[in-house]
């Protein structure tokens, strides 16, 4: 059994990096704007479909990823403008229902445009790295590296730029930030755009790893919410560690206990964390203002 351990750990890291990549954008939007954006999964889906369509039309994969990401950023901003901004002062329940409605509308639109049949973009980095004890596709190594790079990029924006300072200020205290002259509309636009970028980029890249279909975003976004709870809402590093932890736990449950219990394991962890450490494994307790 232990001879499988290195491979299962690699499997878990690979799976977890995909969860983390999707959770990054979600945690940013949730942490700053307090929007439980269930439609984040559909931004991920649209990134994947756009890439698939562009590659099918003969566009180079990497260029297709860039174009698809830009398309999704634009859609994300439109989504915020049409769906969430009008509900800015509404309850979180209204925001959640609006997010679910947007999610369903985007899924149905994708079904009308592309149909429901699953399809996968050919991998741009073929080949497998085989080491003693484990093997991993080169493309999966790239996904792990991209996840870390995405985290690094967002961290730099948040911690080394005026925009990041404004975003953090709004996340901490919206009213005080406004009193300090921060333009909330700009912060909102930037936050949603970065969130959409991360979702679109994740979908565009992972379209070469996973089947693409209109409802492909549902499961990852549910897992991403679990990651948010594990890592602490709004905590970027928590999203990375939470994603990797969730991936490893899922793989270990399937590999060493039973593949029938894979999802049960995930949600058992969620319940345990909510009971024992509701602020998340890497989050801090904050007082409700």
């Amino acid at each position, binding site marked *: 059994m232990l*001879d499988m351990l290195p491979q*299962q750990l690699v499997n878990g890291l690979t*799976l977890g990096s995909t969860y983390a990549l999707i959770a990054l954008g979600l945690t940013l939007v949730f942490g700053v704007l307090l929007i439980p954006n269930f439609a984040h999964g559909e931004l991920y889906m649209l990134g994947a479909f756009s890439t698939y369509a562009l590659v099918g039309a003969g566009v180079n994969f990497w260029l297709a990823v860039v174009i698809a990401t830009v398309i999704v950023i634009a859609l994300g901003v439109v989504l915020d403008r049409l769906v969430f901004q009008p509900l800015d002062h509404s309850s979180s329940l209204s925001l959640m229902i609006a997010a679910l409605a947007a999610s369903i509308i985007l899924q149905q639109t994708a079904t009308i445009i592309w149909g429901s049949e699953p399809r*996968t973009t050919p991998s741009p980095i073929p080949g497998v790295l085989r080491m003693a004890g484990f093997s991993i*596709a080169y493309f999966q190594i790239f996904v792990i590296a991209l996840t870390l790079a995405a985290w690094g990029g967002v961290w730099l924006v948040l911690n080394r730029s005026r925009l990041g300072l404004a975003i953090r200020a709004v996340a901490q205290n919206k009213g005080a930030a406004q009193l300090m002259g921060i333009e909330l509309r700009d912060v909102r636009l930037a936050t949603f755009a970065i969130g959409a970028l991360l979702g679109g980029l994740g979908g565009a890249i992972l379209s070469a*790893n996973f*089947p693409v279909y209109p409802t492909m975003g549902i499961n990852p976004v549910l897992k991403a919410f679990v990651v948010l709870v594990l890592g602490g809402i709004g905590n970027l590093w928590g999203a990375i560690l939470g994603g990797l932890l969730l991936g490893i736990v899922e793989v270990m449950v399937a590999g060493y206990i039973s593949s*029938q219990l894979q999802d049960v394991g995930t949600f058992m962890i969620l319940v345990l964390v909510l009971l024992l450490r509701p602020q998340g494994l890497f989050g801090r307790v904050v007082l409700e203002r």
Partner: protein
Amino acid sequence: MIKTPKLAANLLFGLAAATASMTAPAIAQAADLVIGEIHPITGPAAFYGLPESQAIKAAADEINTAGGVKVGGTSYQIVIKTADDQASPTVGVAALRKLLGEGAKFIIGPIASGVAPALKPIIESRPDVIQLIDGSIADGLTNGKTIFRNQASVQAYNDALTRLTKARAYPTVAVMTDRFHAGFMGSQKTLVDALDAQGNKVVAQEYHKLNDTDFSAQLTKIASMKPSALVLRGYPAEGALITKTARQLGYQGQVIWEFVSPPSTVLKNISPAEMEGVLNAIPPTSQDYVALGNEKALKLEARLKKMFNAEIGELSTLSYDAVYIFKAAIEKAGTLDSAAVAKAFTQLKTTDVPMAINPYVPGKDNLLFTDGQVGLPGGVQIWKGNGWQPLADLKH
């Protein structure tokens, strides 16, 4: 004043239209035979369901052109009413109720093994309704009275698989099954027992579900056991991803699928090179009959092209046959009365349906149905180039 003639004309037109709408159905019903069909026209299984629906319409068109269904001195024109179940039990139940509400007593479908069991209690509560299942392979669906099936049972799939594994004498086998597929899960134990009994020791049973994207944990476990064959039971998109992942994790044994997999769907998820040599243990598909030069299958293929500009689907011939089986039963009964038609179903012989494309194996007294189920031999296909080809020699 100026508008009066126009108003009067409109009223007259409206009255005429209303009169026509009241009388037209009465005239049409006298010579119409309504057959309802339930298939996934949209949703994740549309690549199965849409070609089936088209084949039903092609068969109805062919029969209507040839004079319709003859009952006594009347020739009935078949009218197909389509309901989309989206491969979902909830939607399927609503679709069936819609068809029944529209007066359909003869039903073809469904395909999804999750939908068929949901429809069964409704059909059984209506003795005037006859169902012919042309897709779902789950066990326990037919009752031999009002519910029949011209698709193979899951047992026929398993028989094809066990013949293959026996012929190739695989010492060890791993099985990976979609845990929400009613047909496969219901027959899992029987299959595993059969494999073990004939010397193909089952060393691993793993599970996944529709729309899963990561199978690495299960496949790592399987690959570490080095089974001679890996049997996949589920759907094509997951099958493609599992096959790719298994190779990536270093599994070098034979990959065997056990589900209908249109090449167009397969190739959207895996390259031909990665599929080369994969086996599929299922009853022959429509495309097999086309590849083998079956004249009736070729004719259906041409009709589908002409009517819908569509390719023949893997299960199209079953749906096409289903319409002809209804025709044969109704003509044998000599009435549209459901009880008589249901009785005729139980008395149909394979020779009563000469237009059938699939080579149904006659049961006792040459009957087409035994307890509501046809006999369909299983077969094996091998992936070569861009599609499946019938495999004649199971050993090589």
